[in-house]
């Protein structure tokens, strides 16, 4: 299979209104669908740092249908850091999350300046990617990366943003996931088994 499956849009949103979705599930997903439709006032990051985080998220998460379908991951990170929530662990080699994010955003500025003599936001997408790749590989220039472990921070950043993205019903729709529509049961669960309510891929060549 050298093609990438594409799934028809609208499947998850249509399923949410059916009896295949429990009340608790529907409530959680509809809340997430509704979030991000109103303007957002940052709670943790300064506006400049937040703009930088948004730019980073835009490179990490390819959203071909943006801006109409943009899933606002930066906002979720900002909300979490403002609340001081954790996910149960962190690498001992990294400072507490708030400090790590602050340092890392400063580090990205330093690397952009060192590599291109410009601010990260002024770089082309390819240049931004090169900066992020350097952080991921542990080769980023800048004093901050001497004290902050770039590859570990990048792993944490990537894991958090990707998890937030694929928590969103529209991202789940993109990959053909309809596990939320589990009522009353799944009965066709073997290889190539599909239930009526599961979407079929319209396979298109990868672009």
């Amino acid at each position, binding site marked *: 299979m050298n093609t990438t499956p594409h799934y028809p849009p609208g499947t998850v949103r249509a399923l949410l209104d059916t009896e295949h979705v429990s009340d608790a599930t529907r409530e*959680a997903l509809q809340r997430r669908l509704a979030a991000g439709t109103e303007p957002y006032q940052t709670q943790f990051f300064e506006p400049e740092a937040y703009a930088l985080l948004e730019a980073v998220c835009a490179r990490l998460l390819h959203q071909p249908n943006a801006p109409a379908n943009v899933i606002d991951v930066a906002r979720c990170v900002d909300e979490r850091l403002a609340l001081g929530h954790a996910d149960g662990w962190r690498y001992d080699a990294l400072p507490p999350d708030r400090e790590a994010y602050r340092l890392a955003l400063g580090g990205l500025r330093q690397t952009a300046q060192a590599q291109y003599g410009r601010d990260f936001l002024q770089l082309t997408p390819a240049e931004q990617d090169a900066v992020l790749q350097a952080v991921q590989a542990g080769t980023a220039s800048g004093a901050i990366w001497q004290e902050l472990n770039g590859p570990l921070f990048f792993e944490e950043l990537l*894991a958090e943003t990707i*998890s937030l993205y694929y928590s969103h019903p529209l991202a789940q729709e993109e990959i053909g996931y309809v596990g939320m529509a589990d009522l009353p049961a799944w009965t066709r669960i073997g290889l190539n088994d599909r239930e009526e309510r599961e979407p079929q891929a319209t396979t298109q060549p990868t672009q």
Partner: protein
Amino acid sequence: MPDEELLEEGVLNPIKPEIQDPLLQELLGEQQAATPQEQPQPVPEQFDEVDCVVIGTGAGGAPLLARLAMAGLKVVALEAGPRHDARRDFATDEKAQEFLFWNDERLSAGRTPTSFGNNNSGTGVGGSTLHYTAYTPRAQPDDLLLRTEFGIGQDWPLSYADLEPYYDELEQLLGISGPAAYPWGPPRRQSYPLGPLPLNGAAQLMQRACQQLGIRTSPAANAALSARYYQEGIGWREACTNRGFCQAGCSVGAKASMDVTFIPLAEAYGAEVRAEAFVTEIERDAQGRVTGVVYEQHGQQMQQRCRALFLCAGAIETPRLLLLNELALSSGHVGRNFMAHPGMQVWGTFEEEVRPYKGIPGALISEDTHRPANANFAGGYLLQSIGVMPVTFANQVARGRGLWGAALHDYMRQYNHVAGINILGECLPHDENYLELATEKDSRGLPKPRVHFSYHDNELRLSEHAERTMRQIWETAGARDIWAFQRSAHVIGTCRMGRSGDDAVVDADGRAFDVPNLYICDNSVFPSALSVNPALTIMALSLRTADRFLEKQRRLDA
């Protein structure tokens, strides 16, 4: 929510005063031992003394809670997390279910740091069983005799024969679904009460390939019901609906988590479960016997006196509580011998549609690698097919492959075509692997636990062997784009049981060598990791610990 970072500085933890200077710590050491620390705490709300307090309601605490209550004792369980109504409140949504995990931050150190939270640590009435995969293989007899067999690692101070009656009992009570004849381990005296759960796509792929390769497989033993099931004191539980959400909470009641099995059983016999009760102090008398505990509940400090204490808070919180309270430390082994199962996963992309969100995640098992021929390591591992929920998968793709941007997006579109295999393998204790209290504080002002974990030769060799095996299986099954995700699972060994208080914290009955009325029962007491999922063995130990305790009580009464 309290602000974690604001509390990090200058907060006096209620148990241990802040003395950062090591010299001063040493000087004060003797003095403190002689005069118990007086803290200006408000007088806690008090209850009448009970026979037993149980801290934690997971696989370690809940079975013994029921057993003690059924023996007529007055018992109270204290659970740090809330009580849930799973049928009403559990969503089929990973993010919405994050409340099931122990989300207080732990610090993961070492060369192969292990992750906590959704990987292995639960909270709420039912503990980590609220999100366990409910795989219930038994340990094999040689799992308990690692040192005898290989000359390294540890033997258990009890044998398979000691556990077997409890395995028998548990399989019937929980309603384990499994094959008519399980190919590995000693023969069962009673067959599994229910037939196996159906094989999902990942299981079928693994079965097909293993058959070609001559690796025996079997439908797994799993504590989710393949049919409605009735047990006295528990009532009817409904059959599994193949939601595939075991690791984020069962909303059906099919999975034998403690909240739908031993907790209702315990309560039917008069046990009291207090939720949202976080224990901070263990009180003792002049002879060093436990007299009660102090806990926080809804912002209030409460006290509960007891004649015996059962500490069942898991392999992180159990040693943490002992270290905070400087209790049962004479062996020097509290917090040491930390182990986690090498749990490598190998993923592949298939032509076939797998839709990996359906069915119990691990429907197929093989224990043919329990003691692989020509292995250059001690112990062995088991193989399990795995389906996966989308967010968990995305997280692993991020950490394991480092993909982002368009590459990630394209790979994630293959989600409905991916299937995995994972192992659980033996882990040896090592001096470098231990839990300690960090100076950094959590939102309660208590030191965060720091866990050092590095694979050594045995874990590395075992993982290499397993990776080869799993890659071969997936190649045979026709997968492309195969990749391995190095991870560890389960937290084990930080208060191990043994024959002597010189190198163990509790005896074979779970009783602390240092404190005659303190019992510990959870994965912290395992002397070795076992190359199987730990939950069933924790429950077996829990029932056994209760029986041994009751026997002692009867002898005292006689």
